């Protein structure tokens, strides 16, 4: 029970990071982006590449940090992956979404995101193979927190949770303390007025993609660290991330964080009563429940 809760919190932190970017994009550009979860895959694989590269150039970097399985090389790669994924998101927007947005139909964007999801996911398969990969072959033993009930925690999990909370704290600081953060909030609240106040919308859209992509990349690496890396990370996480977004209310960044934890914990707690095979269906049930009770999510406003 407590083990499930702990696992749920961990998964929740990963979903939250994915959902933050998705909720920002869905609110600002008004479309359900089915390809957002593929950004997690891009991030995970980008980190894999640079992890290998750094380890090869500087073998000293290939040593683990303390009790973690994480190496210094991978640690550095996380940041590079975040940057690259952010740029990929901008590139995808420039090549596809921006041009469709300018042509008109709102729902064409959703179709286009179907298409982009297929393209990105399968390009990754093509480039890196269908087999699952691991950042490290080392086995790190879990720390036994208690024997009855049995509670196990891996050092990596603690690291991931701390990092995720760190990134969210940074985002919170930016949003609440910097004029740059005010700009993002202003555009989210009222794009027309934001323009009148001198904010260039196209710049803010680019920045939103960068932030969303970077957080998704970190989430992808963390997911890979705790599970494994394969080309279908996006396929497996798209629904839970949508669920987190809808639970929090589209457009609410803090809602997305909370939504991520709620979905993560609920999916893991469901294991107490359901066989594990069913857990991918749990996010769907959460979506239905939220839409029935609070169609605008916990923090969302009514959209027109």
């Amino acid at each position, binding site marked *: 029970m407590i083990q499930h809760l702990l696992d749920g919190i961990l998964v929740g932190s990963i979903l939250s990071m994915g959902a933050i970017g998705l909720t920002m994009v869905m609110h600002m550009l008004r479309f359900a982006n089915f390809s957002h979860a593929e950004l997690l895959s891009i991030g995970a694989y980008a980190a894999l590449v640079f992890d290998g590269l750094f380890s090869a150039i500087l073998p000293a970097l290939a040593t683990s940090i303390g009790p973690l399985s994480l190496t210094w090389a991978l640690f550095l790669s996380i940041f590079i992956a975040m940057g690259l994924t952010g740029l990929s998101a901008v590139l995808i927007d420039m090549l596809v979404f921006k041009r469709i947005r300018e042509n008109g139909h709102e729902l064409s964007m959703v179709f286009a995101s179907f298409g982009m999801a297929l393209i990105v996911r399968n390009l990754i398969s093509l480039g890196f193979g269908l087999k699952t990969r691991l950042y490290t072959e080392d086995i790190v033993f879990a720390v036994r927190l208690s024997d009855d009930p049995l509670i196990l925690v891996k050092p990596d999990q603690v690291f991931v949770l701390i990092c995720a909370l760190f990134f969210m704290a940074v985002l919170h600081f930016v949003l609440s303390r910097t*004029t740059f953060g*005010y*700009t993002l*909030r*202003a555009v989210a*609240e*009222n794009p*027309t*007025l*934001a*323009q*009148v*106040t*001198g*904010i*260039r*919308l196209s710049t803010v859209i680019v920045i939103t993609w960068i932030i969303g992509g970077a957080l998704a990349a970190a989430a992808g690496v963390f997911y890979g660290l705790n599970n494994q890396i394969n080309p279908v990370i996006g396929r497996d996480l798209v629904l839970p991330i949508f669920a987190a977004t809808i639970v929090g209310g589209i457009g609410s960044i803090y809602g997305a964080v909370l939504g991520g934890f709620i979905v993560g914990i609920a999916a893991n707690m469901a294991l107490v009563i359901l066989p594990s095979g069913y857990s991918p269906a749990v996010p769907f049930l959460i979506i239905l429940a939220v839409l029935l009770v609070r169609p605008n999510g916990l923090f969302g406003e009514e959209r027109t």
Partner: protein
Amino acid sequence: MLDIVLKTENIVAGYVKGLPILHNISVSLPRASISVIIGPNGAGKSTLIKAIAGIVPVSSGNIFCGNKCITGMRPDQMGGVGIAYVPQTDNIFRTLTIGQNLDLVLRHAGVEAVERRQVLFEQFPPLSDKRNEKAGALSGGQRQMLAVAMALAVKPEIIMMDEPSAGLSPKAAGEVLQLVRDLADGGASILLVEQNVNQALQFADHCYILAEGQHQIDGKANDLINDPVIGQIYIGGKRMGAA
């Protein structure tokens, strides 16, 4: 010869392509004065200043700011030519505090924020008191004051306002209009849309009347104040006792 700081020449504009709301409107705004646009519902008053502000696309005609043609410029570039625009509603960011609202504007205008903010707070003491409160919690009059302060923050030459007194109590409306008068006396050029015709004519210098997207009459505000034609435009027919 008046010093004209802003003028439109025969502009045609509307939200949807092929469905113009404004037909060949020409207005000009003299320096350091208040011009007011009045007219019945649906006359295109708000559309006119939105078109100048770059929010509604202009399909023909030109807009000049001084000698510079600003037709088709994006709204976020207007600050650069010294034009500020205060929308009628939703003219502040509700989820930001008052201080944050001002910082935001100042940052994007590239103005040194700390000093300028202090000046604004001295100019608007009620805002200073509530600087750390969410703007959404302000009363109607204070919101309007914040919106004006945000427009003033970047020291514009030209300020356009869409019904600044709408929805305010008579007292608050009077205060807002007095503020506008003070700004004009201080050298700003102001273009206003107003609902309250009698009040608007009272304090404005120049008046344009629009109806059905077309320019009807214009003139010195004081000359129009007792003109029966205004009543006719609003409620039609020959008014009893005015004929």
